[in-house]
């Protein structure tokens, strides 16, 4: 799930109640228990809301979200990944969920990666430690 850059003309997140609730669900107050979902934000403003367990497959994101770190990412449940574009981050999220889905299966075939994206994705994977 994703929505466009925060431009009024393109998309109005406020008007979508379900999305707003979803956003709220990712936010954690200091006292409350950590939420089940986290938000990943690309450099061009795309937001992806995915389960925390899936996101933590990535070592970098896991360390960002580690509650003991007291990073702002850990507190808000919102990671801004300045180096990744929306297109790449979408594929990354696809992989994170793909991994989550197949984690107990034997002999998983590889995810489909478009060739034009693979070098950028390679850099992203290296950065995200996935």
């Amino acid at each position, binding site marked *: 799930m994703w929505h466009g850059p925060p431009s009024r003309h393109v998309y109005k997140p406020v008007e979508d109640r379900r999305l707003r609730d979803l956003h709220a669900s990712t936010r954690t107050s200091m006292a409350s228990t950590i939420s089940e979902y986290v938000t990943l934000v690309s450099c061009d403003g795309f937001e992806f809301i995915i389960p925390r367990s899936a996101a933590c497959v990535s070592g970098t994101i896991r360390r960002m979200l580690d509650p003991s770190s007291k990073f702002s990412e850990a507190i808000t449940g919102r990671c801004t990944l300045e180096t990744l574009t929306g297109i790449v981050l979408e594929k990354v999220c696809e992989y994170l969920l793909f991994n989550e889905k197949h984690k107990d299966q034997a002999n998983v075939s590889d995810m489909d990666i478009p*060739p034009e994206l693979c070098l950028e994705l390679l850099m992203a994977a290296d950065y995200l430690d996935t």
Partner: protein
Amino acid sequence: MQSLVNSGLISLGNNFFLIPFSFIDSFFFRSGIGDQTTLRADRRANRSRNIRGPHSALTDFLASNNISAAQIRDDYDRRVSEAARQANGETTAAAAEDQDSEFEPEPEPESPEDKVKKRKRQQTIERIKKTKEFARRKARKTGEPDDDDDWIANQIADDKARPAPGQLENCEICGKRFTVTSYSKAGPEGGLLCADCSKKQVKGDGKKAPAKKRVSGPSRRQNKTKLLDGETPHGAQSLLEMCIKKVAESIDDVEEFGDLPPPVMHRLSQILSKRRAVTPRILNLFLRRNHRELNIYDCAQLQTDDYHRILALMPDLIKLNLRFVTPMKDNIFDYMVENNKSIRDLHLRAPNLVTDDCWRRFFIKMGPRLQSLKLWDLDAAFDNKTAEVMCENCTGLERLKLQHIVKIGDETLTAISSLKALKHLSLWFSQDTKPEPLLKIISSVGPNLRTLSLQEFKNADDTLLQSIHDHCRSLTKLRFTNNDLCTDQALTSLFRDWSNPPLTYVDFYALRDVDMSNPAGPPEPIGLASNGFIALMEHSGSKIQSLSIASCRHISRDAFETVFDENKRYPHLKNFDISFTGPVDDYIAQCIVRCCPALTKLVAFGCFNIRDLKVNMGVAVIGTVSEPTFKGIAQAETM
């Protein structure tokens, strides 16, 4: 009776029973199909569906009253056609009629024969059921929901009843007469179709009859390959690895790697080299001014110019790792000496065109700077004298690997003992050597050694092990393979009271006695046997990560039971090779799995007593005859 005739039931059976006669008439006249053909086609269709409709019951009844259905129909046909001819005198109709009558059979009573035919067919089917063809088809069909012996047998019978190729037949759809070939398709009613109609039929069938459905995902062979490559059999691969593979796949479209980090470049090079795809164009992608290392594992397609390019474009290289570098010649070495002054690690495989003179020049100039030198597969040059020059000049050498260098022997071993800075030593000589020079190496450089690998030193004996015991106290890796002189006693005393901390990597491949006439070995065991194995695991069990005891076939079952006792744990053991150790059976293997919680790879070639092994998820079991079962995973998914 008249109404029955009009309805078309008598003449044409249940297949046409809703079609008005007028249509059938025009069909007959236009096509010129004889009734025999039609009936045959009709029966065939019936048979293939194995339905006995009103046709046989009625014809039976009519036959018993001596009335022929065919006769009635023929009369009707004649009357209608005569009427048609009289009405408009159509010549085509007449011709068709003439042709029709040619094929007309004598009006025979169908019905009594039907019983006989039925019985005959039944016999044929019984016979078919015993044939090989039937067994083959049945085997192919199993798994389908409605696999039915009778159905398969009927199919075969129908196939046999088809006109043989070369015969003439009338097309079922257009009625054209054509020669039957093996490509002729069966029509919707079971008859044959001419070439044109066959094509149309195929087009229509294309969608509903796809080829055998394949289960998606990698094949069994691919899975085995992955296992051997060390990939985990469960879960998805890392995104990085997937992307690297994808890049390697579409390498021909890549114009520039961009700022890929060196480890990724290294992995890419490994994959491309394995595919033998490193061409001069692809080499360019790897040449980056700011990188300090270059690893190309297959340089077979590179030319002399390409080596110059590597050295010229990457003058700050620290590590140069090139394999299969046959075109590398003296002038390239000389250029490297002049231009690439920062090279510290040099790994070259098979630079056979470099002469001894050049090697010596190189060592004299570069020697003091070298930290790591690995050379494989040299036969044309590099003799003992060169090795001595190397040992004299490479005073700072910490890592030395010499494998399959044909011309070096004992003198080189003696020279190596002067390399005081050595921390990692790996030797695999082609010549036979004496045991003494090895002792000298161990006694002089042993105390510093972190890793020691001695392969195929067939003349090394117990004194070598004793020397390792006495001198080495910082080893983490020990490889000693292919020897049948060292005794179990010596191996036991190597590990007993050894001041060396626990080893993390041990490879004792093929330490065993080989005597065809005495497979059990001598009473005093030779090679790694029971006591040696127990002592090894007592010494190193707490830290060991990788262990190979492949072909150490004198280790007894009792020793395995002692080592993999219920209370023992080897928390770091990841890779374990137990190939060709006879006593390992299901029970021992299960004990191994229980004692090694970190196990990821168990190699068990030739362990024929392992039949039903249950392992945790994430463990790759290689080489067993039967597939292991994984806890918590359905067996079907593991294929």
